[in-house]
């Protein structure tokens, strides 16, 4: 009845290997469009199961300063939303990684939810992660994602009530994004204890795949979180690596996170 989930399949493949899926974020157009593609391919070659490409947005209320600075740079260089589709094509033509798009909602609304979804599917994208869209407001997206066979990843948080957890899990396809801490994106030394509780609540609400993001930056976090979740999402640490050391640094950090040797 519901379309086959690409991100769900990627997570299932990791599970079959006895490990959590590694989901790696980077912003589109940072350091430039080609650089995003190259870095994403390096992530895929070093153990990333899912690549999450973020669309730079003028008002990113869920992002901390590292990701804000990267997206500001991308926009200042003239990034246009439609280029995200070129980036997805560029990545999927060079590797087999599953590519999701993370986006604040207004850019999608502006293009038109159906039009955006059609072009995303056409480019080979797996679906959307939507940090400021809750299922309550998602009627149009539910319809379009069904029509084009796209995954829809909503967020759940330590503050989510049981009723909201259930409704959000039911509305999601692929995985649910468990926010580990009440806060915005940014590397943290320790991952909050709240993460395990959020994952447990998501599983109890029926989620097949519950992945953890926010604050995850090191291999030890991947191991800790991987013990109870289905996937681990890393953003800020990779964006900082890309900014400081380019594609090589991204390859090295991704390999470290996935517990592998670097592959060029």
């Amino acid at each position, binding site marked *: 009845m519901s379309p086959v989930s690409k991100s769900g399949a990627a997570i299932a493949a990791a599970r079959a290997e006895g490990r959590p899926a590694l989901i790696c974020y980077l912003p589109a157009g940072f350091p430039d469009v080609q650089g995003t593609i190259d870095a994403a391919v390096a992530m895929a070659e070093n153990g990333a199961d899912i690549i999450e490409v973020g669309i730079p*947005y*003028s*008002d*990113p*209320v*869920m992002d*901390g*300063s590292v990701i*804000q600075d990267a997206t*500001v740079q991308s*926009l200042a260089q003239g990034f*246009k*939303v439609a280029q995200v589709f070129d980036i997805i094509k560029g990545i999927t033509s060079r590797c087999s990684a599953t590519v999701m798009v993370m986006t604040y*909602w*207004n*850019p*999608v*609304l*502006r*293009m038109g939810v159906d039009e955006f979804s059609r072009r995303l599917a056409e480019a080979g994208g797996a679906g959307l992660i939507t*940090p*400021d*869209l*809750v*299922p*309550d*407001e998602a009627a149009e997206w539910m319809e379009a994602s069904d029509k084009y066979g796209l995954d829809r990843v*909503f*967020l*759940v*948080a*330590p*503050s*989510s*009530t049981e*009723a*909201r957890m259930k*409704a*959000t899990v039911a509305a999601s396809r692929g995985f649910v994004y468990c*926010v580990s801490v*009440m*806060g*915005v994106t940014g590397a943290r030394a320790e991952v909050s204890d709240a993460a395990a509780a959020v994952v447990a609540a998501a599983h109890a609400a029926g989620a097949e795949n519950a992945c953890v993001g926010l604050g995850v930056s090191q291999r030890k976090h991947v191991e800790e979180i991987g013990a109870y979740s289905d996937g681990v999402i890393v953003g800020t640490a990779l964006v900082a690596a890309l900014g400081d050391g380019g594609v090589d640094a991204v390859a090295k950090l991704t390999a470290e996170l996935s517990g592998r040797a670097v592959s060029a």
Partner: protein
Amino acid sequence: MNPMTGDPDQGESKPASAPSHSLRHAAGPYFGDYGGRWMPESLIAAMDELNETFEAAKADPEFIAQVKDLNKNYSGRPSLLTEAKRFSEAAGGVRVFLKREDLNHTGSHKINNVLGQALLAKRMGKTRIIAETGAGQHGVASATAAALMGLECVVYMGAEDTRRQALNVARMQLLGATVIPVTAGSQTLKDAINEALRDWVANVGTTHYLLGTAAGGHPFPAMVRYFHEVIGEEAREQIIAQAGRLPDAVAACIGGGSNAIGIFHGFLDDAEVELYGFEAGGDGIDTPRHAATITLGKPGVLHGAKSYLMQDDDGQTIESHSISAGLDYPGVGPEHAYLADIGRVHYEPITDTEAMDAFSLLCRTEGIIPAIESSHALAGVLKIAARKIAAGAVPEETIIIANLSGRGDKDVGTAAEWFNLIDSKAKDAK
């Protein structure tokens, strides 16, 4: 329609005094296609808690009595309705009345909302309030309410604005608040809101976000309007008492739209009263430097609500411009978007120059220095008056109310620069 907002029956629940076709007391979350909650899941539980607390408080006589007492004995309400006779002469002889929100404690309408929300923060057991501010009016009002009620207060203000409004920063600090300059993005009001939202996500257990305008996710638009409804209710009673009838038109300035929705509310069901909202036209709406959100914007989502929005073809927010920091916002409250679409309220732009001319006129004809925000409404009154007279209205039988939403003390520096007063003074000294 919206089972997860926790108030399924809200759309139907209206006070008994309002007929079923009434535009007053619209409860949200939606106003036509606008409003809702376009925001992170992390904040939804806090929005639900706020909504439940607000709904319970509205039905609690003790809370209503507390608000009334503060309005009367702290803010100084009711604010006066002053007939501006010499300004009226300049407006072609129509009768212009000013709703004197400038006379409230702290100098603007903002106090109505902050007292109400600070009471709700206390009811929720929150110990800390955060607020955004542009020119500093809402920041000062929030710091005031926090001092009065013993709450910790942190105000986010664009770094650019902290430099332009150094005295207001000092006022907030004197009142015990911490002011955090925001260096992200355009360093203005919208970025201050972004930063306040980031703080709220991280501290939502102890903190209430005291949003200063009738925008944002549900219940903010309906709640902020509720605390400002007193403006329109007083104005309606006062004009009937003083002029013996309802006005022909009511004018207010619009940034996010809180003073406007407050005064409009009193007249929404009086079909014969024309309502006008005046947006910041900046350098002119044929230039990129303005904040005419309803006039030129397109529907979108920003800061939690669907409404008109200044945005480019990619959905990126466009930076607004206005000489008035309080109107310098690229969004607008969702109820205004709805009232614009159904044609109940007319929204028009006023340029910086038109606003400053009206500012000067009120200073010299009435001995009242208005806020530059409010001067947009005054400039609008001059336009409405000219049109009515041109259409054959008898001037002395035409009544227009302008909401004088704030006093201009904070704007003296800007005005002195605009009218070259500082330069000429320096020359005189030589």
